[in-house]
């Protein structure tokens, strides 16, 4: 073992002891070390890690270096990788050119400066940004997502040629991100040359702003237009962002024309997204649009069992049923409840039994009981406007009944986690577009009619307490 290797191995071992596993893996493990006559050079994979290591660990590394080599060594931090141990880069990714450019500092020509600015931007673009755990294997399937899954699998097997774009919509926390990343991981696995990029819409917006500030639009365009698979999450965040929409419009067209796959998610049906240009909305419908519904009980149980399995323990099905029966809203909170049970078991040193689970979930359940039901909303609104509760379900459309009903529907949307179709169902089997119309009407009226706005606030208060 060379002196460098020995130093770095020791250094890593010390950090591993001092830091949490996550911290070690996030910040220290990706670093590479190179030593010449006077200096120890540490390479960080990106600016972000570099800054963090500089702020947090510089003094320690310096001390270890001085202890090891004597005190004449200076310590430098750079972005890039150790040339001596750099492996041949197989994967085409945006980070590759950055490595070279940063190790040999870019010349100060305008073009180089521009490139450097974009490279900085591209530090977010490293590789695909896919979470390797989000695969089809780890995705639990049930009625709620089987159609979406089948479509996703078809696309994964034949990207760019099956349905383009794929538009997946459904409430927050139901597994949209998992599903689309599973496509990305599948494609990556079968074709490591494919240029894949997952990005959250919010981050895309930020990147457009950065490209604008650095006048690096050409690079921005070149990058996005060169992808084989673009996965863009939560597109509703493009609402009102005109410049972003324009950029995305061009990227979208370029990709679709080139038979490259585009996958989009949103928390609602394309036509219901407000503040997005019609030409984009209509394009979203060119391929296939599929919904993900909230998981039913059996699926929630399966999700818990799977989650427990990945955490490395076996969950009793009785326990899984208990949790699943009580947490109905979404997958995130379902996972949260399981974590709480695990944490309690660890704290008490007791195995996970039904009794322990009930105890651990006591305050989650107590809080859940305070959840506002649509029945409560209908009752309180009916009393407030002195109409009958049955009018909430009736077909009557006179103003004095329809308006309170619209208010109640809007309250149901604001105060419960029910989907629009479920709300429509609870109001005499109405269509979800009726609910949507009600919400829009009430929102407009609240702007213009201060009495109605006041009523609405009072009702909200009454229901919350």
């Amino acid at each position, binding site marked *: 073992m060379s002196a460098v290797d020995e130093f770095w191995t020791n250094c890593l071992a010390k950090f591993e002891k001092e830091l949490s596993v*996550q911290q070690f893996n996030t910040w220290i493990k990706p670093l590479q070390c190179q030593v010449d006559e006077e200096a120890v050079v540490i390479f960080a994979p990106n600016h972000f890690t570099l800054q963090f290591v500089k702020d947090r660990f510089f003094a320690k590394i310096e001390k270890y270096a001085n202890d090891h080599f004597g005190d004449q060594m200076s310590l430098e931090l750079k972005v890039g990788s150790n040339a001596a141990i750099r492996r041949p880069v197989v994967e085409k990714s945006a980070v590759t050119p950055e490595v070279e450019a940063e190790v040999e500092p870019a010349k100060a020509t305008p073009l180089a400066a521009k490139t450097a600015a974009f490279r900085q931007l591209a530090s977010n673009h490293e590789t695909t940004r896919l979470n390797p755990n989000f695969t089809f294997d780890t995705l639990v399937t049930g009625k709620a997502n089987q159609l979406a899954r089948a479509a996703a699998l078809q696309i994964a097997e034949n990207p760019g040629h099956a349905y383009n774009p794929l538009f997946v919509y459904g409430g927050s926390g139901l597994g949209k991100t998992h599903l689309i990343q599973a496509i990305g991981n599948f494609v990556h696995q079968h074709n490591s040359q494919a240029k894949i990029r997952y990005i959250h819409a919010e981050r895309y917006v930020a990147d457009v702003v950065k490209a604008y500030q650095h006048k690096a639009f050409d690079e921005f365009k070149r990058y996005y237009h060169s992808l084989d698979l673009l996965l863009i999450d939560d597109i509703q965040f493009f609402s009102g962002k005109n410049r972003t929409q324009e950029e995305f419009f061009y990227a979208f067209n370029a990709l679709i024309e080139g038979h490259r796959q585009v996958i989009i998610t949103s928390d609602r049906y394309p036509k219901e997204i407000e503040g997005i240009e019609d030409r984009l909305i209509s394009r979203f419908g060119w391929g296939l649009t599929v919904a993900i519904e909230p998981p039913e009980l059996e699926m929630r149980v399966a999700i818990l069992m799977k989650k427990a399995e990945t955490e490395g323990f076996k969950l009793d099905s009785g326990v899984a049923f208990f949790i699943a029966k009580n947490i109905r809203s979404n997958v*995130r909170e379902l996972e949260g409840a399981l974590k709480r049970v695990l944490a309690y078991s660890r704290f008490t040193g007791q195995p996970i039994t039904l009794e322990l689970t009930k105890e651990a979930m006591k305050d989650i359940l107590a809080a859940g009981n305070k959840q506002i039901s649509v029945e409560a909303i209908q009752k309180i609104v009916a009393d407030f406007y002195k109409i009958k509760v049955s009018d909430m379900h009736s077909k009557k459309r006179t103003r004095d009944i329809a308006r309170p009903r619209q208010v109640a529907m809007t309250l149901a949307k604001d105060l419960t986690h029910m989907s629009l179709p479920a709300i429509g169902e609870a109001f005499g089997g109405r269509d979800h577009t009726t609910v949507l119309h009600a919400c829009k009407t009430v929102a407009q009226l609240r702007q213009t009619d201060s009495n109605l706005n006041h009523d609405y606030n009072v009702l909200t208060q009454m229901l919350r307490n």
Partner: protein
Amino acid sequence: MKQLPLDLELPHPFAFDNFVVGANAELVFQLSELARGKLPERAIYIWGVTGTGKSHLLNATEQATRAGGFAVARIDAHSLVDANAPMAELLVVDDIEAASPASQIALFDLYNQQREAGLAWLAAGTLPPSQLPLREDLRNRMGWGLVYEVRPANDDDKIKLLQQRALERGVEIGEEVCRYLVTHRGRDLASLFADIAWLDREALAAKRPVTLPFAREALRQRR
């Protein structure tokens, strides 16, 4: 002549060991694990009514984290949250329901950033996740990690706490007086502590020990 006490208040140190644990033993344990970077789950959301000690716990966690040589960033949800806030091993957000729509977007970004980097997140609010008036995607993230209700101290715990707080100020206030405070005054600790401070100053001014009759009289003036 009336003695005028100097109006000097020492900041109260918030640590795990001067928090009266009461029914919150598990929470305190998990928070101290979080501070040491030893908790497998990296996100905690705590909630409870005002005056149960949420801020105390946030501060204690912040201090314990710093003591371990880790950086902590504190976010004020009342003002506009900057999505480019510097990263830290622990991000602390108090009063999350006060976040404006723009701040909620920033918090959403910050949460994801912390999570992706394996860094810790600790937030507090007065409502359970299911009732938080936040954007749905931020709201359900609060329910994604560990969620704890900070349970209010019971009366005996409160009495113990008040006596302890009085001693820290260098004044002895008997159990009888503390029990009177707990049963007759506000129910939240913040206002009870304010009563203790008031009694301390009044006693100094009057050069009298804090007896029950004195306390009654002094607190009548406070109304």
